């Protein structure tokens, strides 16, 4: 946890972190993130040379001012080659407020969950878990716990949601890697409990029978938000 604190502190003073910066930070903290690269307007022409990842890829608009990428049609998936990728990135850069685009290897489909943390006005740091994707929008099937928590409490938290059975392997689907899930929850609870971050959002995290992948993430730095 000391390392996490150091890593957060290193980023104090930056304006709201872009997705690739958040993911670089998460990777250093030991979270599984897709292999990816950030490109801005100047780099578009060099795409064939600089992209060292295997197709198909996904390209996403990057901006500290865009809250929902899908609402501005800012995600292109299943890009099979350099031509498709370049075309997609050029389109994404046309979006209002775009600061660049993040190109990532396509992750395998899994069960999507949301893991987050906020500093609650009454209780201070709390960690949240819920089913991701449209489940979280539609059913708000989420649960909270005071942070930080240990694995035992993380397991309790996971059990609180109504959709828990999906994780156990529903209709012949294999169960997800609960242990990895719990490790991620514990780690997020530790990050929010440092008191240095105001909000953290890993949404979605794709869960697999073995392992997991953080597909999108946001961090709002508490010190930044107070304009120190």
């Amino acid at each position, binding site marked *: 946890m000391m390392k996490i604190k150091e890593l957060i502190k290193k980023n104090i003073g930056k304006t709201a972190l872009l997705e690739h910066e958040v993911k670089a930070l998460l990777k250093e903290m030991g979270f599984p993130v897709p292999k990816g690269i950030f490109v801005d307007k100047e780099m578009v022409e060099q795409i064939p040379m600089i992209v060292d990842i295997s197709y198909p890829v996904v390209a996403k608009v990057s901006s500290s001012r865009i*809250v929902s990428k899908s609402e501005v049609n800012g995600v292109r998936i299943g890009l099979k080659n350099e031509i498709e990728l370049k075309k997609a990135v050029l389109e994404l850069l046309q979006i209002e407020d775009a600061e660049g685009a993040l190109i990532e290897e396509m992750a395998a489909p899994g069960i999507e969950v*949301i893991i*987050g*943390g*906020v500093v*609650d*006005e*009454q*209780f*201070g740091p*709390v960690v*949240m878990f*819920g089913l991701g994707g449209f489940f*979280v929008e539609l059913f*708000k099937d*989420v*649960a*909270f*716990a*005071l942070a930080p928590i240990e694995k035992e*409490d993380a397991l*309790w*938290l996971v059990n*609180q949601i109504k959709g828990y059975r999906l994780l156990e392997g529903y209709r012949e689907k294999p169960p997800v890697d609960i242990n990895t899930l719990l490790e991620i929850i514990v780690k997020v609870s530790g990050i929010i409990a440092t008191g240095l971050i*105001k*909000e*953290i*959002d890993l*949404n979605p995290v794709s869960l697999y029978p073995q392992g997991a992948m953080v597909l999108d993430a*946001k961090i*709002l730095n508490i010190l930044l938000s107070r304009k120190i």
Partner: protein
Amino acid sequence: MEKKVYTTSLDFLFYPRSIALIGAAHTEEKLAGVILKNLLRFRGRVYPVNPKYTELMGLKAYPSLAEIPEFIDLSIIVRPASEMPQILKEHKGKARCGIIVSAGFAEIGENKLQDEIKKIARDISIRILGPNCMGVYNPYQRLDTFFLSQERLKRPKMGNVAVISQSGAILSCLFGAIRSANIGISKAVNYGNAVDIDESDLYEYLANDEYSDVVISYIESLGDGRKFIERARVLSEKKSFIILKSGKGLSGQAAAYSHTGRLAGRYEVFSSILKQFGIKEAMDFDELVDTAKAISYQGTFKKSPLFTKRGVGGIGKRVLIVTNGGGSGVLAADECIRQGLDVAKLPKNRIGKLGQIFPYYYTINNPFDLTAQVRNEDYIITLNELKDDYDGFLIIALTGVMGVTEKLGVLMGNVKKNISKPIVFHVGHDRVSRKLIAILEKARIPVYPSPERAVKGLKALLNC
């Protein structure tokens, strides 16, 4: 009065030896007049303070607090909010504890005035309850600081349930409900704006209160959430503790940046954290009272080795429903399912034997239907046969039929001793039922006015 040992400052709030009433009035048309009348029953010394009178309701009146010839344990202040800073300052070295009944502070946006009295209280080392509150009721001391007349709002009898309410209105409604539920109370507090003594302080106090086995708490808003959780956790380890929170629809941080922030509604976070620490929450007013009643009557039962800090496991959740009305039994079973209780089938070996004992038209199942042809003894036979197969028992006795009489109450009292497992009753209301209910409740079997509410009482006893 037994000798009270004073160990914490809150002892003076609940066990004062002397009380001053600042702003005392001569008539019950005024709040301070009602309070004075209620204080006439108090066994300690009462000093009304009002410079306009030399005598109030038969007591010598004092022109000021300073004139009272002793150090006061509890001062009750009923004066306009604007005078409060000055009045409080006069308490320096003169009183240990104060109840500020008056409104007109943060609840109407007068935060500055509230902060000022908070600071004064701290500076002169006096503990304050309120402002904007009714204070305390301790039937064991005949202490009643409420501005509600006892003729209008009858007080509950003495008992083992402590009631804490942020709202005075809800506390008065709880008094009514608690009385009709035939529950006794140990202490009641309305703490209002909580400039000093807040819910957490009261939890800490009640955790060590020998008169209270059950504590119920109605909350609108919290001060320090972490302190609240810590004290609530300790209290729920020592007593049966149930919270009712209002304001469930309030949204989360509106300007949140993340999904998590938008989803973190104040109530959702609150409710999750209660569960995390194994603290019981009632969903509504009735459930709060029904749950308190069950535990007040039968206490908590020994927990199984599987019991965890969150109550998972409890003492088991297999429920037997014995009824003489089919529909009532089904409603009870439906509610059991909603509440996560197990209306488990009868063991096969018991069915045969009970089939031989009872007429063919009884439904030997769960719910166990003794029909309109029931006799009192049938309930007893059924319970004795099946007592080892279930964790809790819900008995429905509709007294419109001739076979059910008040004698059932006496028989049940004896059965309860043999079974020593949770038993609750639902009885319909008619002429016979009043007597039956009285006998059952004397035997500490809680009776409820509907099948669903009986289930909630039973659930509380099963600790699920």
